């Protein structure tokens, strides 16, 4: 990956310390993590609105901040576009004046052309003379984007760009935002605490927790190979479980868990080889657990690996899917309170198998669906 920008900052605040280092290339980098993890603080440091205690910020070979060398460009000279969480549109100015605000030192003709171009590209034609209070949420977002993009920024920062919107609009604008960002080609950093949003917008995801980066990876890698249990928890992954290593090989790992020996695929890119008997964390996506049909022939080892039996201890209807809380037929305390494994089945499957009345099931998990979490 070619680095377009590199960020390395330390900022101590009362009761909180931000200490992060990450790099990103072309496209969209998403800072993902829970509220209060330091994501917005990072954006403000990038924009020059907050002065880090130490570190270095480089964008396209341009040093914006270097504590050791005493470099600290003011926000006015960073050419960093900032889309604020509440958009921060100037309420006393029209759409056209907002978009042109960063261009006031350019000749009038240049400014007018640029404003007209941005307004056309963001589909804001006809709204030039409106005030922000007269716009819909989606239009406001586009004006905020247009205002930041009009200055032709070296880097575009977006702080929770969709959080001000209602859920249906949010989904639509997520896709619109993605196409605007890729269409414009400006390197961007987006802050969000919503994993779906992060995954949809990102080329690269940087996971924040308590002022630190706990993983930085291309989005697909993050989805399938969270680097640690902490990342899995921040991502909101379900069925994060703890077992004991039986045997670890470069391609397979055997894990003892709740009276079973589960076989999992080792990480394809970074093999993880813990000693036998050492504790190990892993996760199983609920939608990847397969119930074994009782009306077919008995399960065979070739098609059904990691076979287990259990009873439905609880269930919840999520509209399109049912979430079943399975309790294994195994001695000892269940792994997750009153159940061992959450299993998700589509509504149709729930009805066909008559799970409402039939509560005891055998199920299997493909070894590729058990993901090891390195410590």
């Amino acid at each position, binding site marked *: 990956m070619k680095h377009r920008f590199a960020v390395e900052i330390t900022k101590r605040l009362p009761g909180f310390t931000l200490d992060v280092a990450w790099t990103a290339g072309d496209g969209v980098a998403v800072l993902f993590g829970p509220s209060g993890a330091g994501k917005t603080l990072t954006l403000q440091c990038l924009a020059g609105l907050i002065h880090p205690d130490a570190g270095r910020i480089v964008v396209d070979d341009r040093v914006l901040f270097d504590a050791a060398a005493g470099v600290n460009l003011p926000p006015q000279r960073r050419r*960093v576009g900032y889309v604020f969480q509440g958009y921060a549109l*100037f309420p006393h100015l029209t759409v056209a004046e907002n978009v042109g605000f960063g261009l006031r030192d350019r000749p009038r003709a240049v400014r007018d052309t640029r404003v007209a171009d941005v307004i056309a590209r963001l589909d804001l034609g006809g709204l030039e003379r409106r005030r922000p209070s007269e716009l819909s949420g989606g239009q406001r977002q586009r004006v905020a984007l247009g205002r930041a993009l009009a200055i032709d920024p070296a880097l575009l920062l977006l702080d929770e760009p969709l959080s001000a919107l209602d859920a249906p609009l949010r989904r639509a604008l997520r896709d619109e935002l993605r196409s605007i960002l890729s269409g414009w080609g400006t390197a961007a950093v987006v802050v969000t605490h919503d994993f779906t949003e992060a995954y949809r917008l990102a080329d690269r995801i940087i996971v924040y927790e308590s002022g630190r980066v706990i993983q930085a990876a291309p989005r697909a890698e993050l989805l399938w190979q969270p680097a640690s249990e902490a990342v899995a928890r921040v991502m909101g992954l379900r069925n994060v479980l703890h077992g004991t290593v039986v045997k670890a090989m470069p391609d397979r790992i055997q894990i003892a868990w709740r009276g079973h020996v589960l076989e999992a695929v080792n990480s394809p890119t970074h093999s993880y080889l813990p000693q036998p008997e050492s504790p190990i964390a892993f996760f199983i996506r609920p939608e990847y657990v397969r119930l074994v049909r009782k009306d077919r022939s008995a399960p065979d080892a070739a098609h059904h690996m990691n076979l287990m039996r259990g009873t439905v201890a609880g269930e919840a209807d999520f509209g399109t899917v049912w979430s079943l809380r399975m309790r294994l037929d195994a001695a000892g305390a269940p792994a997750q309170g009153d159940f061992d494994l959450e299993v998700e089945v589509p509504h149709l499957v729930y009805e066909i198998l008559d799970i409402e009345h039939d509560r005891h099931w055998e199920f299997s998990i493909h070894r590729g669906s058990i993901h090891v979490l390195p410590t």
Partner: protein
Amino acid sequence: MSADAVTALALSIRVALAATLLNALIGIPLAYVLARRAFRGRALVDLLVTLPLVLPPTVTGYYLIVVLGRRGWLGAPVYAVTGWSVAFTWYAAVIAATVMALPLLVRTARAAIESVDRELEKAAFTLGRSEWRTALEVTLPLAKNGIIAGLVLAFARALGEFGATLMLAGNIPGKTATVPLAIYTAVQTGEMGEAVALVLALTLLSCMVLVLAGRLGARAT
């Protein structure tokens, strides 16, 4: 209304307008700095500006004499060089009214400036604006209604100023005797008709100013 009463009314309006202008020049930057800048001595500046609001006007007037009087800290050197003192001139009435009205403007304008979303200012910074231009193009325009309401209040306060004016400017008919002072003189000398005319004129003027302030205040919220 007598010629003296008309003179007093004209002088009052002239003094109040001049004091309001001075308030705008001093008070708006002061309100901005108090609202947006952290600096050493901010609490002290805030205290000094606010003090005339709670002190008896005669006490404020006394301090003004100590500073600006012919033998005052500033007044004495000025008198030594120019042979002129501001005391007992109409300028003194303007200064007294300005000092008395300043806390009203500064407090109102400061609250209006503080209510402007700081993210708007940050947005202006990232769009290349200096702090100075951000104040002129973003912060002050958005605090406009509160600032105007503060100026109206300052004008009303300047119009009614009595105690500090009496101390620093005296009560010289046609020169420093503004309406409140003229009313006092009229009552003291038993010219009740004159007093009533001035009282009604000042009441009417003050009501108009308050109605105006109320409208601006309603629009600001």
